[in-house]
C-alpha cells in the first residue's frame, strides 16, 4: 500500500511547498510512490485520511493551534518543512515587539478587530518527528527525508556547521572579506549556498545542537566585527531560539 501524504500550509510564504513542485526531475517518480491526498496549493482535496503530514509555515494565529493538533492526531508521521515550521524562522521577528504594537502599527484605528499571537515553530505546540531545514526548505533534504520515510530508515540531517561545507567548496571565508557570517554556528546541509554566492550565512537553518560560540566570538574579533552585529543578523531567523535561551 502506498502511504497517503498530506501537505499543509500554516503562516508563511508557501515557498517550501513550491520547493516540492520544483523537484522537476523527481516529481513524477515521487507521485508514483505515494498517494498525495491533500496539497491545497496544487490540487483539489482528495481525502482527510493521511499517514504522513508535511507542515509548511509556522504558528501565529490562535486558530492554527487547534488545526495543527488535529493534523497531529491524524498523522502517524509529522514533518516540519522549512524554517517557519522547524525553527520559527522569519515570522518570529514579530516577537521582538509587543503584539499590541505590531497590531497598532499595521491597523491603526482598526487594531481592535484583529488578533495575533507570538509566532512559534510547530514543535512548540505538538511533537514533530522529522525536520527539513532552510528558508526555503532545501530540496535535496526534502527528497532525502521523503525517501528515508518511504524506505523505513532514519533520515540523516547534518549536525555540523555550514563552515564544513563552505571549506569543501573552497570559498574565500566571509570573515576574510570583512563580512558578517553565521556559518560557524549554523546547521549545514545547504551546501553553503549563500557564502558560495558571496553573501554571508544568515542562519536560516538554525543552530547546530552544540554551537561553538567561543570560537565564533574569536573569529568575529579577528575580523573586526562585534557580537552586537552578530546578534542583529541572528535575530532574522533564530529569534525564537534566542527567546528560549533567554527564558
Amino acid at each position, binding site marked *: 500500500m502506498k502511504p497517503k501524504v498530506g501537505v499543509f*500550509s*500554516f*503562516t*508563511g*510564504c*508557501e*515557498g*517550501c*511547498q*513550491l*520547493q516540492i*513542485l*520544483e523537484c*522537476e*526531475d523527481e*516529481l*513524477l517518480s515521487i*507521485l508514483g510512490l505515494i498517494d*498525495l491526498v491533500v*496539497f*491545497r*496549493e*496544487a*490540487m*483539489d*482535496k*482528495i481525502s482527510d485520511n493521511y499517514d504522513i503530514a508535511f507542515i509548511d509555515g509556522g504558528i*501565529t*494565529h490562535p*486558530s*492554527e493551534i487547534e488545526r495543527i493538533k488535529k493534523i497531529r492526531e491524524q498523522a502517524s508521521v509529522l514533518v516540519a518543512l522549512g524554517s517557519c515550521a522547524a525553527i520559527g524562522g*522569519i*515570522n518570529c*521577528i*514579530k516577537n*521582538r*515587539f509587543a503584539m499590541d*504594537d*505590531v497590531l497598532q*502599527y*499595521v*491597523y491603526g484605528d*482598526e487594531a481592535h*478587530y*484583529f*488578533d*495575533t499571537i507570538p509566532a512559534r515553530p510547530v514543535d512548540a505546540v505538538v511533537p514533530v518527528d522529522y525536520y527539513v531545514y532552510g*528558508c*526555503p526548505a532545501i530540496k535535496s533534504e526534502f527528497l532525502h527525508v521523503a525517501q528515508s520515510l518511504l524506505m523505513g530508515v532514519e533520515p540523516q540531517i547534518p549536525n555540523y556547521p555550514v563552515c564544513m561545507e563552505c571549506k569543501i567548496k573552497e570559498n574565500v571565508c566571509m570573515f576574510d572579506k570583512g563580512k558578517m557570517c553565521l556559518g560557524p554556528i549554523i546547521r549545514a546541509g545547504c551546501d553553503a*549556498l*549563500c557564502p*558560495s*554566492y*558571496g*553573501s554571508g550565512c*544568515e542562519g536560516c537553518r538554525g543552530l547546530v545542537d552544540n554551537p561553538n560560540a567561543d570560537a565564533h566570538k574569536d573569529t568575529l574579533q579577528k575580523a573586526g566585527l562585534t557580537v552586537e552585529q552578530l546578534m*542583529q*543578523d541572528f535575530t*532574522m531567523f533564530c529569534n525564537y531560539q534566542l527567546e528560549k535561551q533567554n527564558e
Partner: protein
Amino acid sequence: MSNLNINVHHVTRVEGHGNIVVNTKNGEIEECKFEVIESPRFFEAMLRGRRWDEAQHITCRICGICSIGHTTASLNATEAAFGIQPSEQTRLLRRLLFHGEMLQSHILHVYFLVAPDLLNVGSVVPLANTHKDVVLRALRMKKMANEISRILAGRHVHPCAAVVKGFTKLPAEGELLSIKQQLVDAIPDVEATVDLILTLELPDFERETEYISLRHSEEYAFARGEVIASSDGDETDIQNYRQKLKEFIVPHSTSKHARANRDSYMVGALARVNNNYHQLSPMAKSAAEKLGLKAPCYNPFMNNVAQIVEVAHCVEDGIQVVDQILSNGLKEEDLSVEVKAGTGVGAADVPRGTLYHEYTYDENGIITDANCVIPTGQNYANVELDMRALVPLIIDRPQEEIAHLLEMLVRAYDPCISCSVHLLNVRFV
C-alpha cells in the same frame, strides 16, 4: 427564481487561503464576496529597526512565488532612498533574473493551477497519466526558468546574490551562454504551449475596468518602471503611488482592497499587455494574435492567455538581454553604499501585477517606517465586481457549475493570497 447559496471554503490551486461566498434570493445578489482568511505576518512592523542590507532578504520572504519580485522592488526602494542609480550591467542582470521568475510563475500557474480546470481534472497529478507530454513540457519549462534564477542569484525562492547596486556574485560567461541556449531550446515548448492554449476553451465574459501597470520608455516594464500607467490615460510618478492608489479595509478580508480612478482596477499580465502591448517582443505579439488576445481586452479569464504571451516575451527578450550582457562584457563593480536618511519608493511589475515597497531610513541606514502594497490585494475589489457581473449571466446553471466558474475566475487572477495578507488578519466570528 432559485436561490443560490455558494460557499467554497479554501479555494484550491491558488497560493494562500481564501473563500468564495455568494448568496442570491429571487435572482438578486444578496452577498458576493471573496473572503481572505490567510494569517497575518506584519512584515512592515517587523522591518522597523532592521538594517538597509537586510531589507530585501526579509521582504522576499513575504512570498515564495514572487520572491525575486519582492527582492527587486525592495532594492529599487532602498536605491531610491539613497539616491543610487544602478549600472547598466546591474539593470540587465536584474531584467534577466526577473524573466526567470516571470517564466516559472506563469508556467506554474497556467499548467499546474489552471489547465486542470480546462481539462476537467482536479490537479496536475492525473494529467501525468493522460497528458504526459504536457506535464513533462511544463516541468521542462519550469526547470529552465528556475535555472536562470539559480545561475544569477543562487536560487529562485529567496535569492541570495541580488543586493543594492548589483550582485554579490557575477555569472561566468559560460553560464550566460548556457542560459541563452536553454532559452533558445525553449522556443518550441513556447510554441507548443500556445497550441495547447488554443485547444482549451476559456469562458466568454467581459467587464471593462481600469487597468494599471508600470511603464518604462525603454522596455516592457517588469523589473523597473518610470511611471504608473492607467488605461484611463493618466500617468503617475511612482513616488506618488499613495495619491493614485487608495487602499481600504473591508470586514471580510484580511487583505486590504484598493481603488484608483473607479470602484476597482486590475493589475497583472492582462493589465500590462493592455497598457504596454507595443513594447512586447515580436514572438509575444504573434502569440497574442494567434490566441486572439487583442489589446485592450476586457475578459479577465484572458489573463491566462496574457501570461502565455508574456512567457513568449521573456524567452525572446531574455535571449537578447544575454547577448547584450555578453557584448558589453561583465566586470566586477563597486558595491559600496553610502547610507543616508530619507524615504524611497520602489516598484516592480511582478507576475501578479504592480508591487510597491516604501522605506524610510534614518542616518544610520536603519528602517524607521515601511509600507508594501501587494498586487493581489489591489485585484480583490475587481474580482468581486467581476463576480457580481458574472453571477447574473450564469444564475440558471446548476449551483456546482456556478461555483466552479467562480473558482476559475478567482484562479484566473492568479491570486497570491499569502502575499496580500502580509499585514492583515481576519477575526473568525
